[in-house]
């Protein structure tokens, strides 16, 4: 049958939320695996890739946590930066993106109720993503050994002057092409559906996937330029220098919208799956569409807010970025309203009463529900610290401190990661026909993640206010002590370490549950269905579905926000920069000093001995 998520709202006879029928010819009887086995295999492969990255990334996370808090330092502080790079890249590029391409593939195929156009093509993009990320990952891990002259200790924010081995950039480029082809796959499938259904509204989930894909193309254009024209040739020795401000700016052009690339699948799950788990229905399809359009428009022209302290970018450009960022709060606040209202509807239908009493009737024993709700709650907290980050003046207070780390562990580390884990408890049976090994362990796991993150992230924020730096193996200095706020530095360190340990335990529980679930045998009766919105697509203006229009405006806004700053950066520093020598520069400086020092000493010594300090010596 065709996707009917957009059909007029109706009520099922049995008093439950109506079903949109896209689960199969007989609603609720077929899982995604039953109906689209090929697509289900691709989704499962992407999830497994994500979980592998999650295992590696979280292991490095606990090592780092214990290292920088001084609890346990079995590795050298030099290796800390290799751990840090691996933690960042494996979790925020590999775990998140592998999982989200799976969610998007599931959502698109499910909502269009048609298979992917060409499964071989789908496996091709999956293969490219896996190959690229393996190359990049191995290049980072090679940094642990001196046996090979390969390393990439450049952190997730891999701009100049930090330089990685060419394989790191090459792998990233291949991975990126894989994601582009995944987007192309979704669009081709949509266009095939459009030919079959010329007059239908785009189903909501497909709409979310398609708008996010356009946002991804816009965002990654700068990353591709940065890697292909600057960082990779520089790393290969084809060009001697790059303009560091330019590569930083191109990175953050990508670096902020990538946050929304991680977040949009979480939003998709909150909008379309969470209400159904709660027994409710999405409050408003039109509002959901508006939110995704706003993210398409506003995600990218804001990246300069990551560069408030960068010299070489005029304050005016930073002010424009701040204004855009504040507008970007709007779709998130709309989401808070719409998702909570959708869940409240479910609670009321379940008999919930009172201003807050309805919360008690929600299915808190369901790990998928509780996990997503806790993720949303953490996102609300992250919203506050994000507002502080976004304010030009107040950002100076916390810039480059561990406050920022605390912030993004609430957003990508919980709103996204916890939603993905919670969604796994709901999605995995749909794509494999295997029931979850233990939903009780699942419930404990999501609650532990929430508790661990509450402890760790709160302490990170407090430390940030004390000026404790991020990206630092040993954040203490001789002759200097941090002040105290909500406890002293040592006490907060303990909170970070305990929180990090709880998070690691939660990650182990999650992965164990998934592995044990894989050992279950396939069974029937696992099909879940999604309810229709209360206010359906028939209430949404047609212009919302004009993705070409929104894509055009998005590009225009990006040009307005970035054309002048980039021209100014290039005019000031040149396309390939006045500087940008590869790290470690200090070693180069020492080498030059060692080479020239004897000559200098010979030339200057007579002056010195003769009292010639005025000859230029300090």
């Amino acid at each position: 049958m065709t996707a009917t998520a957009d059909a007029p709202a109706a009520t099922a006879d049995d008093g439950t939320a109506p079903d949109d029928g896209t689960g199969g010819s007989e609603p609720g009887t077929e899982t995604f695996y039953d109906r689209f086995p090929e697509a289900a295999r691709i989704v499962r492969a992407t999830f497994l890739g994500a979980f592998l990255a999650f295992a590696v990334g979280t292991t490095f996370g606990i090592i780092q946590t214990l290292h920088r808090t001084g609890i346990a330092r079995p590795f050298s502080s030099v290796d800390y930066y290799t751990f840090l790079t691996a933690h960042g890249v494996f979790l925020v590029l590999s775990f998140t993106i592998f999982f989200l391409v799976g969610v998007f593939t599931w959502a698109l195929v499910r909502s269009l109720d048609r298979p992917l156009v060409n499964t071989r093509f789908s496996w091709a993009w999956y293969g490219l993503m896996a190959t690229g990320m393996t190359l990049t990952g191995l290049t980072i891990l090679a940094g642990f050994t001196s046996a090979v002259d390969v390393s990439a200790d450049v952190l997730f924010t891999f701009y100049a002057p930090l330089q990685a081995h060419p394989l790191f950039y090459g792998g990233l480029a291949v991975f990126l092409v894989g994601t582009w082809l995944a987007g192309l796959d979704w669009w081709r499938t949509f266009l095939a559906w459009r030919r079959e259904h010329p007059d239908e509204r785009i189903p909501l989930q497909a709409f979310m996937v398609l708008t996010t894909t356009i946002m991804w193309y816009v965002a990654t254009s700068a990353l591709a330029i940065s890697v292909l024209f600057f960082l990779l040739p520089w790393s290969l020795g084809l060009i001697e220098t790059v303009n560091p401000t330019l590569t930083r700016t191109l990175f953050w052009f990508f670096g902020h919208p990538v946050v929304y690339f991680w977040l949009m699948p979480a939003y998709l799950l909150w909008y379309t799956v969470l209400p159904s788990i709660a027994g409710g229905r999405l409050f408003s399809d039109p509002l959901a569409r508006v939110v995704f359009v706003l993210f398409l428009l506003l995600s990218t022209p804001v990246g300069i807010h990551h560069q408030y302290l960068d010299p070489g970018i005029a304050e005016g450009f930073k002010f424009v970025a701040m204004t855009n960022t504040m507008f970007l709060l709007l779709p998130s606040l709309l989401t808070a309203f719409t998702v909570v209202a959708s869940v409240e509807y479910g609670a009321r239908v379940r008999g919930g009463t009172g201003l807050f009493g309805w919360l008690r009737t929600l299915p808190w024993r369901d790990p998928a529900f509780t996990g997503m709700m806790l993720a949303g709650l953490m996102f609300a907290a992250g919203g506050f610290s994000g507002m502080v980050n976004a304010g030009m003046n107040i950002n100076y207070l916390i810039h480059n401190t561990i406050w920022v780390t605390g912030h993004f562990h609430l957003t990508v580390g919980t709103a996204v990661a916890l939603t993905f884990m919670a969604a796994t408890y709901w999605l995995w049976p749909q794509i494999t026909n295997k029931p979850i090994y233990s939903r009780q362990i699942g419930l404990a796991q999501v609650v532990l993640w929430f508790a661990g993150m509450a402890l760790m992230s709160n302490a990170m924020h407090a430390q940030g206010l004390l000026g404790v730096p991020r990206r630092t193996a040993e954040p203490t200095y001789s002759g200097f002590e941090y002040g105290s706020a909500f406890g002293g530095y040592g006490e907060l360190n303990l909170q970070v370490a305990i929180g990090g340990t709880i998070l690691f335990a939660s990650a182990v529980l999650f992965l164990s549950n998934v592995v044990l679930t894989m050992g279950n045998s396939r069974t029937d009766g696992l099909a879940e269905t999604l309810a229709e919105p209360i206010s359906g697509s028939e209430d949404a203006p047609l212009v919302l579905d004009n993705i070409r229009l929104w894509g055009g405006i998005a590009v225009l806004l990006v040009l307005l926000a970035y054309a002048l700053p980039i021209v100014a950066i290039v005019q000031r520093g040149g396309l390939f920069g006045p500087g940008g020598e590869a790290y470690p520069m200090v070693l180069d400086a020492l080498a030059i000093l060692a080479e020239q020092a004897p000559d200098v000493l010979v030339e200057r010594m007579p002056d010195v001995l003769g009292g010639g300090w005025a000859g230029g010596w300090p």
Partner: protein
Amino acid sequence: MGTTDGEQTAAGLLEDPKSFDPKGTLALILVYFCILVTMWVYIYFVEFLGNDLIVVG
């Protein structure tokens, strides 16, 4: 309407979903707003009144 004496009933909401009035959501959002304002005030004290400049080194 799906309400009885101002309270929305399950049967009423199922009969007429569009009569749903998300008052509980509004209450939660107001609580969030109050927390945000409190946190902003706190940050104001941290930034402007709580600290002298910290110079490291």
